[in-house]
């Protein structure tokens, strides 16, 4: 299970790198962003 958490974190790091290079995000990137934001919103409730 720890690998999965790391996988989302790794995905977010990759996304951040892409954005800093002014590259466009793809659907898979947005899927990770969706999951990360949904978990964050659930945690706040």
């Amino acid at each position, binding site marked *: 299970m720890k690998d999965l958490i790391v996988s989302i974190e790794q995905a977010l790091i990759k996304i951040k790198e892409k954005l800093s290079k002014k590259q466009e995000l793809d659907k898979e990137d*947005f899927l990770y*962003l969706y999951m990360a*934001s949904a978990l964050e919103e659930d945690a706040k409730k």
Partner: protein
Amino acid sequence: MPKNKIIGVIQLGNKSEVLETLIAFKGYTQTYPDIHKTIILKHASNVLENLIREEFEEIIYLPELDKNSLEKNLEYLKAKILKISFSVLINLSYTKSSAYLCTIIEAKFKLGFKYSKNNYLNIEDIWSKYVYSVIMGKNLNPFSIVDIYKSVIGNKRATAKFPPAELKKIIFNIPYNKFEELITPISNQFPHLEIFIIGEPYLGLTNLKFKYVNSFEIFLKLNFEDALYIGNYSEYSLICSYKESFCINLYSSNLDPFLYMPYGIGNLSCLENINLNSLLKMINLRKNETALKTQAGNGYLIYSDRSNGDPYEIKEIFLQFYKYSFIICFEDIEETIRIPSVNEKTLNELDGYRNATDNLRELTLFGKKYSVLIIEELSKESPQIEKIKEYGQRIDEIDSLSNRLKKTYPLLGPAIDYFFHSKAMVQGDNLLEITQNVFFIYEEYSTFLEIILELINNMKSRFTIIEKGN
């Protein structure tokens, strides 16, 4: 509308938000019978499944996200979400996660919050921009969330029937400390009515006639015909509103009474500390169809007992102004305006706001001027970057001056924030196109403020000035 269109609706909110969506969609199938409707929900909403199927042909439940089964959820999302597509996708949730979902799902047209490929929040439709700038900006707001949903989806407003002259039951959803003050005397006033009370039996209120409803599932099975709901805004009031019962909403002073309003012609709202006599007046108001028609406007009314002559406060006046101005600008429909009684204090405040609105309008004229200068410079063979930067800085100063004006005149917030965010989200393939769109926004902004100024000037000449109140 062309046949065989499929629309998707994202609603990731709680039971109340799902119910608000269902109320907004009432009548949609009759108006657009050839449109197939799919709703995307969180699994926790499945207790409402029967009601949801009255408005939607298909339901997609999103998996509950859990750190212990992320891989499974990811595979499901890839298999399900990446494969669906719609003609129109409408995001009626105003959250980051719903915006990402709206970005991922394939659709020809998208409404509501979504992201661009560079991960910037992108909102194109006017009503979703309104939610972002006015409501999430905690500004004054005259619209119910259901009205806003209906406007986003293009469904006509206020299709509910008028409340029944003859009631058969009253449903109470009020705090225990109001039970004895309200329930027993109202029940005595209407002895032939069934009384339902949401909650556990209250020892201070022993009457075999009273029926306690202690679960949402049991509540859903009630017959809501010719019913009156009295209580706070909740999934219970929303069910009653969906079933077209007459609703009297009791709201607390720290909540937005317009945003969370039981939708339907003749439904009323008032502060939760209302006394028995005023509540009885409100219950009897339902018989006065003429009064309800002239007052209800788009289908709701905040009750205030002004028969004792209390004047309007400046905030209430601006609520009317914004309702009128946003609807005329967004939908080209003219709303009715009530000419209130005011006192000297409000008149003086209104003078201050008239001057501030005029100053703001002058700023928009500067905004137009500098946009035109940028467009002219860009249209030259060798545009000077320094000049373009300078004009851009002038536009930034306009924003900064507007914000300062907002601090002193907070009721101008809805206008300032809406147009600021519209400008910030402006689209365009290049700087010339972006600046042209900025110019159009300033033009609309200036017209909007002229409407407000005209309303102020027209009303001032027709106010009844009274001494009562502060």
